[in-house]
């Protein structure tokens, strides 16, 4: 029972990080109907910026976080303007290849700047030693509380942005029906750029949260492959169009992976992700929370 509790807590903490990545992918999917494979590369790159500031130059955790999030905004906006805009109306697969090219480019660029050789560690924001419950220690620490809270705050802020502000209304309109939105005077192009920028900033947060747990810190410069795939899996489970779905998908994935890891085998984590995904999609081919019909990639 204690083990079950610990596994659940561990799953929640991991799941929130997957949820943040999934949210970023959902943002971009809603805005441009593109699955952004470069998300992993973008979050890796911004995480390294923060790492460079915090660990090499001993700058405060929060300042480094803010700079990385800012860098995310810029990278996202530039990527959309420079790379995605020109292929948006071309064959849909082209966008996939372009984001792939960007992923590889960022990976190489990070390697050039920071080297591929060292493993990097990143100071978490708070202690990672678990809380005590009686004479036992929970697998849930102040840092986990921080992760869960941070992602929840982002979710709430995004919800308010989308539902309560006119900017959010325009973003939704541009996402669901760009041509109609344009006819109503919405500057759709700018909103798409903004959507990418926010997504990349969100990715930066997810990357730093992951880096501060054991999950991310051994990553050297690399594509953050697993984080992207789990994020994507979570987003697809949730239904790609739905921010709430992304969060629930992320949590579901995190918790199930945590159980399966411990109760079945910890060598085939990626296989579980596939099985969960297939199980969900066979019952609901458009994910748990999707409303509009899927279009082609």
């Amino acid at each position, binding site marked *: 029972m204690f083990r079950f509790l610990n596994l659940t807590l561990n799953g929640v903490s991991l799941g929130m990080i997957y949820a943040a990545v999934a949210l970023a992918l959902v943002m971009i*999917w809603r805005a441009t109907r593109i*699955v952004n*494979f470069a998300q992993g590369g973008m979050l890796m790159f911004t995480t390294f910026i923060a790492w460079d500031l915090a660990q090499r130059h001993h700058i405060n955790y929060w300042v480094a976080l803010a700079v990385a999030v800012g860098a995310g905004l810029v990278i996202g906006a530039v990527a959309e303007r420079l*790379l995605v805009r*020109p*292929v948006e109306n*071309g*064959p849909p*697969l*082209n966008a*996939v*290849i*372009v984001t*792939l*090219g*960007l*992923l*590889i*480019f*960022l*990976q*190489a*660029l990070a*390697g*050039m*700047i920071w*080297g*591929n050789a060292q493993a990097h560690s990143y100071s978490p924001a708070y202690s990672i030693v678990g809380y005590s419950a009686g004479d036992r220690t929970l697998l849930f620490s102040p840092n986990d509380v921080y992760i869960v809270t941070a992602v929840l705050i982002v979710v709430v802020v995004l919800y308010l942005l989308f539902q309560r502000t006119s900017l959010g209304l325009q973003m939704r309109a541009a996402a669901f029906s760009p041509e109609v939105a344009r006819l109503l005077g919405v500057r759709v192009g700018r909103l798409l750029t903004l959507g990418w920028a926010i997504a990349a900033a969100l990715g930066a947060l997810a990357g730093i949260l992951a880096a501060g747990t054991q999950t991310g810190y051994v990553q050297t410069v690399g594509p953050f*492959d*697993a984080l992207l*795939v789990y994020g*994507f*899996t979570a*987003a*697809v489970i949730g239904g*790609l169009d739905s921010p709430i779905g992304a969060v629930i998908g992320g949590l579901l994935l995190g918790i199930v992976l945590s159980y399966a890891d411990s109760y079945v*085998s910890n*060598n*085939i*984590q*990626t*296989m*579980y*992700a*596939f*099985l969960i*995904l*297939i199980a969900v*999609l*066979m019952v609901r*081919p*458009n*994910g748990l929370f999707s409303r509009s*019909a*899927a*279009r*082609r*990639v």
Partner: protein
Amino acid sequence: MPAILERSTLLRHTLFALVGIGVLLLLIHNLGDYRNSQLAPIAYTVCAAAGLTMLVGQSGQISLGHGAFMAVGAYTFALLQAKWTSSHPNVQLVGLLAAGVVVAAVFGAVVGVAAARLRGPYLAGATLALALGLPSLASYEKLSDHLGGSTGLNVTSPNPPTGVNAYRWQSIICCVSAVLVLWFLSNLSRSRVGRSFRAVRDDEVAAALCGLSVARVQVLAFVVSAGCAGLAGGLLAIINLTAGPGAFPLSLSLSLLAAIVFGGLGSMAGAAYGSVLVVMLNLSWAQTLTDKLSIHSAKVANNMPLMIYGVVLAVAMLAAPYGVQGALHRLRMLATGTRKS
């Protein structure tokens, strides 16, 4: 061109295939070991990419996980090679490759049935997770004794006939396979099956109204393309002397996709061009270019080939959105002075 060739597509394709094999044999004979060791991967990539073209370009589905089918082909080859030895090495080779094709095709049918329910990004997500998940099965405790864990299974390269060196023999095996695959798929896409693929791609509803079973056509497309990937996997096992999870990373699946988009989606020739481009870029060109730049920093030099690959991927899509085939088409249009409408 004689009238009979004008009329019979099958005959024409067969003739071209024979000529192609002849030309390739001549080429292989004249290439050195190093060039042959690059030709072989190009050829097996062509097999997989051509199959993927049937799926993505012609039936309008997507797979980000074709590496998984290659893995099935490779593991089938490796497992059977250990169990079944034939007195005649060539019979054994053909048998093992065929087994890889069949098992991969069956596996493709299973995936296809699930895939027929999914569209667009959901299918993309499922196949992506498959590409990452399936190779990890090799490390599952209950299977790792049979599948060799993360190290994988060893494969022995078939002995060449006397007088042919090992590099050439591998090139011959791969190139002949590639030509056969192209021959088969070209005929298939000209047949009723190919037309039904395209009908489903262009408009599922209209295809269904014409009496096609959309799901069945989509499953068939998966079977065909998985079979081709299975063959490619078997060939990969021969060339790399291994069937292991590390040989089928996500990047393999994605580079296959890049190859067919590069070449120009939907065409067999495009799949061939694209494969050449992607494999050579990866194996050689990016490195050569880096060496020419003579960079002093090790960090920069180590990552330069990767960066060149990424930049080429993105720039190619921006410059030639319809791939090599599309660019050629446009050139031809310019040359003949006709306009595309």
